[in-house]
């Protein structure tokens, strides 16, 4: 169930160039699943006006804390990056349908492919898959070494490969270049990142089940305003889906890429 809560900042840290990790505490953490997102109001005024949709990187039910990792690149996220421990943040969430953890049987292997600021939700997913006895392989793509994060966290959970566009860390190029070389054996893939990456992955693994997380400009975040609709492929029963309330995660083949 979606709730609106004034949550307390536990911790905020800059973990890479313009990349921030923000930990918040509150009751709605208990409803979160990996791949869902929260809709955050960064201030109390009309400026900026709209909420910011941000993915969930860590869920801790015991401490009622969750972490989001975001890039401070606009007015909203810059204001958010100024929040300090003890401050209050207005959060609506959790929102949307996340990654189905049970799509892989215990003992199986999952391939997790992230691009840039699409990497964070894969962290909680990797944690929950591992808890389930699923082996995870992580392929993480970034622009450059200075915007990479969570190497240690991902490495603890499974084999982790980095790809950077400028070659400053890991393989140079795109995640698909590395996957061509790596030829990983897996049962299901999960991905979050830019549209060209999701498109390339669908084409690269036509025979594997896969789940893709999408991003689109949003207003309401709950499915009422019709801002974030995507066209579907011909085989899907509906003509369109809303990224916020029908997604953000869809099985591959649903959204027309």
């Amino acid at each position, binding site marked *: *169930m*979606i709730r*609106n809560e004034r949550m307390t900042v536990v911790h905020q840290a800059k973990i890479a160039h313009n990349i921030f990790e923000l930990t918040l505490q509150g009751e709605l953490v208990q409803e979160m699943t990996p791949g869902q997102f929260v809709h955050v*109001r960064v201030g109390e005024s*009309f*400026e*900026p*006006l*709209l*909420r910011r949709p941000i993915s969930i990187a860590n869920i801790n039910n015991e401490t009622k804390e969750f972490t989001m990792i975001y890039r401070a690149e606009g007015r909203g996220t810059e204001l958010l990056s100024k929040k300090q421990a003890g401050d209050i943040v207005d959060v*609506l969430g959790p929102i949307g349908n996340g990654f189905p953890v049970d799509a892989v049987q215990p003992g199986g292997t999952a391939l997790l492919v992230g691009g840039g600021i699409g990497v964070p939700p894969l962290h909680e997913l990797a944690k929950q898959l591992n808890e389930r006895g699923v082996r995870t392989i992580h392929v993480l793509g970034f622009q450059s070494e200075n915007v990479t994060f969570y190497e240690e966290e991902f490495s603890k959970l499974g084999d982790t490969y980095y790809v950077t566009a400028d070659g400053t860390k890991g393989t140079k190029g795109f995640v698909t270049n590395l996957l061509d070389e790596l030829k990983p054996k897996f049962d299901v893939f999960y991905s979050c990142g830019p549209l060209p990456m999701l498109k390339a992955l669908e084409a690269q693994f036509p025979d594997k089940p896969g789940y893709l997380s999408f991003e*689109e*400009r*949003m*207003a*309401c*975040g*709950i*499915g*009422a*305003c*019709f*801002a*974030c*609709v*995507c*066209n579907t492929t011909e085989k899907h029963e509906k*003509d*369109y889906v809303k990224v916020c*309330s029908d997604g953000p995660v869809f099985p591959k083949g649903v959204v027309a890429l």
Partner: protein
Amino acid sequence: MSRINISLPGLELKNPIMPASGCFGFGREYARLYDLSKLGAIMIKATTVETRSGNPTPRVAETAAGMLNAIGLQNPGIDKVMAEELPFLAGYDVPIIANVAGTEIEDYVEVAERISKAPNVHALELNISCPNVKCGGIQFGTDPATAKQLVEAVKAVSSVPVYVKLSPNVTNIVDIAKAVEAGGADGITMINTLIGMRLHEKTGKPVIANGTGGLSGPAIKPVAIRMVYEVYKNVNIPIIGMGGVSDAQDVIDFMSAGASAVAVGTANFVDHFVCPNIIDALPAKLDELGVEHITEIIGRSHR
């Protein structure tokens, strides 16, 4: 005794607060957040004869104290709205104002005739002001003679009172208001969004795929207040005011200018509980103003 109930043609409102069309879908999403029966009314998303898939994305862009949208009247069409959406809303004790849109007069007439027969539709809101579709919508709202003709055609078939939603994108909104009144409109709803554009910082190109979008949010409130104020002086039918309403004071402002009820739009995206919050805050506002019933403040700017 309620201090905030309002009577309007076709509408007995528990309170003057209703979500504005296009900002609330058909109520399903907000029904998961709070009891829709708390609302004065609901203005449902524009309904057309056919299913419409709307404009390409991006469809929204944030602006200073506001936002632009160009959704493009996406809706499932009259058949589905009648079969699925209105019956769902009938589960709540709240009157529905059905927003009606089309390309030709015949489209408006067909939707109006059918949707006005739904038991929970207590009034229509003719959308002659959508800035985001190529045909229909705003073309009916910018020429007084065309607007009058459309209202007459719809009035002839509607089973419920007809309100007309005015566009602010005109030289003289009073002329349009007078024309729809002469055409037999039972009330006016105003304002729709202002046509605007935001450019991408790097490319210099419009952010919204449609190029232009409708500006809404707190930024447009002064424009809306001015227009309600002008129209109130010049017509004798009630006005439902809207444009940047975010709190109880905004409601007082619109009603002072001459609105008999107030719709809340963009604010529903920011504070998803804004409508019930405003309703709860109104009695205290009346106390501050030393007013017993909210109807006493309607048009007080003019007295």
